[in-house]
């Protein structure tokens, strides 16, 4: 009887430790992903600004298309970032 209580307590304790570990890993990954997506959004924003400067420097038939590509890229990165935050 004594032994059973001890083993149940040990199991519950181990489960609790495991849960803590999983929470720790989850939080760590969450912060890591937020940082990664955040940095990527900054990169996408800089890329958009750079495309704007490039477009002003040299205008071709595809300039508008390239600029649109930059905006789509920025929009996509923001959308994924928000989706991650809400998930």
């Amino acid at each position, binding site marked *: 009887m004594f032994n059973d209580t001890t083993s149940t307590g040990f199991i519950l304790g181990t489960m609790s430790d495991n849960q803590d570990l999983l929470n720790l*890993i*989850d939080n760590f*990954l969450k912060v890591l*992903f937020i940082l*990664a*997506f955040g940095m*990527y959004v900054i*990169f*996408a924003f*800089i*890329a958009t600004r*750079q*495309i704007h*400067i*490039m477009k*002003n*420097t*040299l*205008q*071709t*038939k*595809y300039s508008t298309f*390239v600029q649109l*590509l*930059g905006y789509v*890229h920025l929009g*996509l*990165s923001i959308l*994924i970032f928000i989706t*991650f935050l809400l*998930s």
Partner: protein
Amino acid sequence: MPEIFDASEKQTPVKTTSRKDPKSYSQVIRDNSQSDNPLDAFALRPTSVVFDSQLEDEEVLLLLRQHPITQIKWIFIIGMLLLVPFLLSLVSFWDMVPGKYHFFGLVFWYLLVLGITLEAFLSWFYNVYIVTDERVIDVDFLSLIYKNISAAKLDNIEDVTATTTGAIQSVFNIGTVKIQTAAEVTEFEFENVPQPDKVTTLLNELLLEEEREKMEGRVN
């Protein structure tokens, strides 16, 4: 009273800005058709191409980019990066990552590859060498935060040399054209451009035309 001076009759000296049609003095332009494709690496008299410091009557005669074959290393690297998630799925630890992060990890990776692809394309597309009927211009965008534009008047060009080295350059007719100038930037290098012989010929034709303009007193 006799009229000594009448300002209304004063004639201002007229600058002759007559610009010849490039076809009249350039064999290269005569022999090759006008480029309509904005992705051309060798674009003669490209349509719809304008650069920011372009003068009103200045015409872009040649727009050069690095030959597309020189970008093959990027295509290869991007192809390899696309395969990484597949290779990662073969490793057992990847399955231990919780489902949500598994999905967003993949999404992030492909987004990163998209960013690298966009950056590589932009770097190729906007790193151009421009030859106009007045100047040579080198536009450099080495990274997202570095921009450098150098220009030299054709009058200042002293020497033009084209170099082709290696098997790939010989097969695809690629080369580096070096232009020595007396301007602030003493050397321009058009790296890995297609048809370097034609670039050199065109530049020499333009230099001759500049000489002719000076001799005939045409001011441009």
